């Protein structure tokens, strides 16, 4: 109450969502599309717990998010009061840090520290729990300076490269010089560390083949000849083969997560590893590094050696690219709309800085495989936590932050229902997000696993009783249409993209189509299954 009362007379722009999870994901959309901190607020008890899924999402995807939660008055804390929940306790493992404000005098400094911390070093969510009496109090006395721990062995390398890092860079340069088959492995940390340009300069100078993680997509110039694309479970064959054959991996701002590496002890079996990350805890966590550079990537890249030669390897990678080139254009005889082809066409129609948000599942992997991005800030996808329901609210935040761009939410029929209430938010503020519901009437990714790895025993993945999404959207005040034939794809996509109102296009897809290739669980990345299940190469 007191905070919202103050809002009436304040210059802060506030957007009311219909579920706190929607608010936190919208803030994530704002933060990820701008590379800056965004704020969300929830009331005590259920309001706070509703935020937490998205806070965990922000933790796993390193999103700078400031989360403010209301709390019962300090005098009632610990008494199981109405709508009291131990938010601080709940926050411990899903935030970078969390604060509880005990007195109004602490508030200014805690808020400043929390804000700064979201973006310092590796970004992440920070939560501040504020009891009601603190909100009601007047700040008469001097604000207190809250004593901070003097850190001794933390982040010493943020502003300049220390000796350890300089030594590691020297080792890295030796490894680079002696490598015959190097691969640059690009993670989300590169753009978060404002090093996209430095990275592309390094690539131009060296001609090194580059692969990207889900969160790194869009970092490497799309016209760069040896941009091999995404690696991992649903990666492209050239990327996975190149990594498996490499003799050196230069890992930049990535954490070698299991969806990217596949079976760890068969991952890049012949490669030495140079690992650059601002978070020292990521280095050596899943695989030991031969050169460990715990530093700001932007400062490291210019110091890496560029006089390196590997012409045969470049030819091999170019060859892989050619070999696995595929055509994703609709042919006139086709009856069913194919998800990948639809997204290819959408991609061709978007401007290069337009933003695509997605949910989680098969359609998410098709977005990663088939939409061309010019920066990870225009590809908002829940990577680490893989949270269904991410797409629509993230698109709301992204559109508010980027009013001049097209923002498209590519939603799964299962995922869309998880935050469908935010259609009301689109309508309330007339936010012109475009929603593409990829309706395969299935929890498709789970169905795919049941089909391939569980003897086609389909359990609880059939959603053929979905509502008529276009009517639902119209009831919320959106413009909406249904797309069910290949002949209409082009016209309906154009209608949708040109609309300046919030709009929804409900696409009916086959329930059979799967994501290819797929690396089965616990399998090395070179053992990709292709559509007809033959293991290639």
């Amino acid at each position, binding site marked *: 109450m007191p905070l919202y009362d103050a809002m009436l007379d304040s210059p802060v722009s506030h957007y009311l969502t219909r579920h706190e999870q929607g608010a936190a994901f919208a803030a994530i959309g704002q933060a990820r599309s701008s590379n800056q901190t965004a704020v969300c607020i929830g009331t005590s008890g259920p309001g706070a717990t509703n935020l937490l899924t998205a806070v965990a999402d922000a933790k796993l995807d390193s999103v700078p998010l400031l989360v403010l939660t209301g709390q019962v008055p300090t005098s009632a804390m610990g008494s199981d009061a109405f709508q009291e929940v131990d938010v601080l306790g709940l926050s411990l493992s899903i935030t970078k840090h969390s604060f509880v404000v005990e007195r109004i005098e602490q508030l200014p400094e805690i808020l400043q520290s929390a804000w700064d911390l979201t973006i310092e070093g590796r970004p992440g969510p920070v939560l501040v729990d504020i009891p009601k009496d603190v909100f009601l109090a007047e700040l008469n006395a001097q604000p207190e300076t809250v004593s901070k*721990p003097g850190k001794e062995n933390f982040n010493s390398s943020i502003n300049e490269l220390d000796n350890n890092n300089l030594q590691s860079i020297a080792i890295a340069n030796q490894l680079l010089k002696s490598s015959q088959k190097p691969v640059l492995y690009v993670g989300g940390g590169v753009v978060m560390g404002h090093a996209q340009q430095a990275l592309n300069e390094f690539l131009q100078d060296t001609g090194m083949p580059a692969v990207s993680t889900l969160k790194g997509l869009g970092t490497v110039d799309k016209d760069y000849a040896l941009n091999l694309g995404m690696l991992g479970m649903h990666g492209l064959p050239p990327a996975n083969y190149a990594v498996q054959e490499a003799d050196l991996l230069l890992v930049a701002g990535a954490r070698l997560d299991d969806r990217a590496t596949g079976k760890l002890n068969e991952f890049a079996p012949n490669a030495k590893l140079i690992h650059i990350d601002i978070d020292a805890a990521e280095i050596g966590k899943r695989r030991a590094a031969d050169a460990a550079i715990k530093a700001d990537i932007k400062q490291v890249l210019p110091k890496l050696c560029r006089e390196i030669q590997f012409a045969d390897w470049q030819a091999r990678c170019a060859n892989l690219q050619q070999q696995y080139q595929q055509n994703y254009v609709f042919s006139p005889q086709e009856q069913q709309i194919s998800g990948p082809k639809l997204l290819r066409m959408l991609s061709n129609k978007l401007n290069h800085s337009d933003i695509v948000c997605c949910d989680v599942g098969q359609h998410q992997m098709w977005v990663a495989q088939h939409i061309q991005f010019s920066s990870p800030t225009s590809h908002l996808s829940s990577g680490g936590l893989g949270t269904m329901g991410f797409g629509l609210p993230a698109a709301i935040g992204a559109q508010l932050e980027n009013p001049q761009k097209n923002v498209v939410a590519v939603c799964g029929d299962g995922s869309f229902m998880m935050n469908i209430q935010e259609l009301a938010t689109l309508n309330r503020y007339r936010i012109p997000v475009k929603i593409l519901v990829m309706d395969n009437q299935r929890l498709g990714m789970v169905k795919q696993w049941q089909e391939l790895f569980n003897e086609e025993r389909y359990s609880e993945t059939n959603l053929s009783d979905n509502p008529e999404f276009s009517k639902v959207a119209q009831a919320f005040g959106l413009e909406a249409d249904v797309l069910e034939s290949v002949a209409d794809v082009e016209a309906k996509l154009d209608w949708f993209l040109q609309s300046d109102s919030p709009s929804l296009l409900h696409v009916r897809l086959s329930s059979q189509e799967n994501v290819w290739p797929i690396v089965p669980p616990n399998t090395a990345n070179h053992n990709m299954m292709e559509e007809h299940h033959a293991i290639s190469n």
Partner: protein
Amino acid sequence: MQYQIELQLHNQPAVLERVLQVVRYRQFHLEGMQMQPEGQDKLTVQLKVSGQHSINILTSQLNKLYDLARLTIQHEMPLKATA
């Protein structure tokens, strides 16, 4: 291996929970613990932990705790074989 580590902490709400949570989540076992508050806001904690992974997995995560000022590994010894 078993390790003894000493932490200088800022004595703030939930600081011990944070330390213990990291130990558990990173798959180390707590074998012993001692703590001495110092003045208003300092806390020294000695932990004895054991685990299969390299101790760096644990210490690098503990080092990220906002309320941690200093961490030192004091001893490192092989685990006694259990009968």
